[in-house]
């Protein structure tokens, strides 16, 4: 499987360590992330390879939001990093038996998951992103989740990150008035 290394500055590097010329050709490649890869790197990537913006309707609004944020220091003490997780779930009740595979980005703090929607966007841009394990949940038993090593394709990575940021985060005015 070809590997696409995503650099901190948003570039996609091929196996030969040269920049990808045809970004779409790498959508099925296995992704590795350069040390210190952040959400800002992700946005630099979709800005650099604009063809990726069509993968999700939420990428453009995300880029607009990013433009109004400071150039650095967008971090929070509440998160050590963000992790892309592939989830495999078997569900059986209610409804018909079903097998779901999906990628989600989640916040992590000292080994515990944190909901990203609880954080403002300008606190997330410089938080590192890592690739996590595959988590297998059987029939809703979220206590005994099995974990496996896995690979992520570039498409899964882009779609998974964009999906998570399609959810509206808590508005600041809401928390102030509460």
């Amino acid at each position: 499987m070809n590997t696409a290394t995503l650099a901190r500055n948003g570039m996609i590097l091929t196996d030969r360590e040269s920049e990808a010329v045809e970004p779409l050709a790498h959508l099925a490649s296995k992704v590795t992330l350069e040390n210190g890869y952040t959400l800002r790197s992700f946005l630099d990537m979709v800005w650099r390879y604009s063809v990726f913006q069509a993968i999700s309707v939420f990428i453009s609004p995300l880029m607009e939001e990013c433009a109004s944020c400071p150039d650095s220091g967008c971090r929070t003490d509440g998160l050590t990093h963000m992790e892309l997780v592939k989830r495999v779930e078997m569900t059986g009740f209610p409804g018909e038996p079903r097998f779901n595979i999906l990628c989600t980005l989640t916040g992590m703090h000292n080994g515990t998951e944190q909901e990203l929607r609880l954080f403002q966007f300008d606190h997330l841009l410089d938080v590192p992103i890592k690739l996590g394990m595959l988590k297998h949940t059987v029939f809703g038993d979220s206590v005994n989740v099995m974990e496996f090593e896995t690979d992520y394709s570039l498409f899964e990575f882009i779609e998974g990150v964009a999906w998570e940021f399609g959810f509206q985060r808590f508005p600041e005015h809401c928390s102030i008035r509460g």
Partner: protein
Amino acid sequence: MFDKIMFATSGTPVCDSPAKIAFDLAEREDAELLLFHVLGVPSRGFSVEVTDVRTGDKEALGEDYEAWVKEELTNTYDNQLKLYVDKTRIMTTVGVPSTEILRLARKEGTDMIVMGANTRPEDGGGRHRSIMGNTMMSVSKRARCPVLIVNRPCNTCWNLFSSIVYCTDFSKAADHAFTFALKVAKDIGCPLHIFHAVNLQSGELGGKPTQAMIENEIEYAKKRIEEKYLSQVGDFKMVEVDVREGVPHVEILKYAREKEGDLIAMAHHSKEVDPEVAEIGTTLEEVVLRSACPVASVNHPDWLKD
């Protein structure tokens, strides 16, 4: 504005946020609150067992079980009940949740149903259409009164609503939603933002639209809003109109955030079809799933009272 409100709950943490809104709203309106839980689906006709809707386990149905469930509900909503116990009725029944909710709503003549959307994070945060609770979808589709869907914790709640976003596609159902939005805005005394998104993805404008076509469409939409809605607002001055182009649910969410919307009001579906057969619209589903504020789905004009 509301005399009787139903809070339909499964008793799970998913319903904590709707509970806060339901109790706040009832208190503000001095309304009676029906705290309603459906015990489970009968296993067979005349069965003495029910399938618990929360766990899927078989439970023996009897007075003890019903009393235990009521006690559980009382404990779960202890804090809210302490403040509003006099006007709250805890009710339970056995059956299919959506059917029983609709049955009770009709029997009691409730003015509003408050529910969660069933999108637990462990279920993937609503990644699949099936995650959107089937109960919520059925109730939202058939309810005669507005259904307030609360998918996120909201600290502002009804008392503090300061901005309502109404989204229209100019359908008949959207007209009913406008009547609701205007009434709520007047009642609370907060600004009402009337919004329409010209859909650039549907192909309705004919393939890839030119800038001139988009601008024409925006102008046309503004004119329709003026004729259809602004003509109804009367002396109420806190109304703002916006029309934008893009993917409707993305634009609605962006607009709601920009206007610091505390409530989004929209119709259940977007096409001119019989409400009894219409499926929940993709736009509403996407908005419910992703919105940070509650979404009111309005489908019928029946709840309107002078």
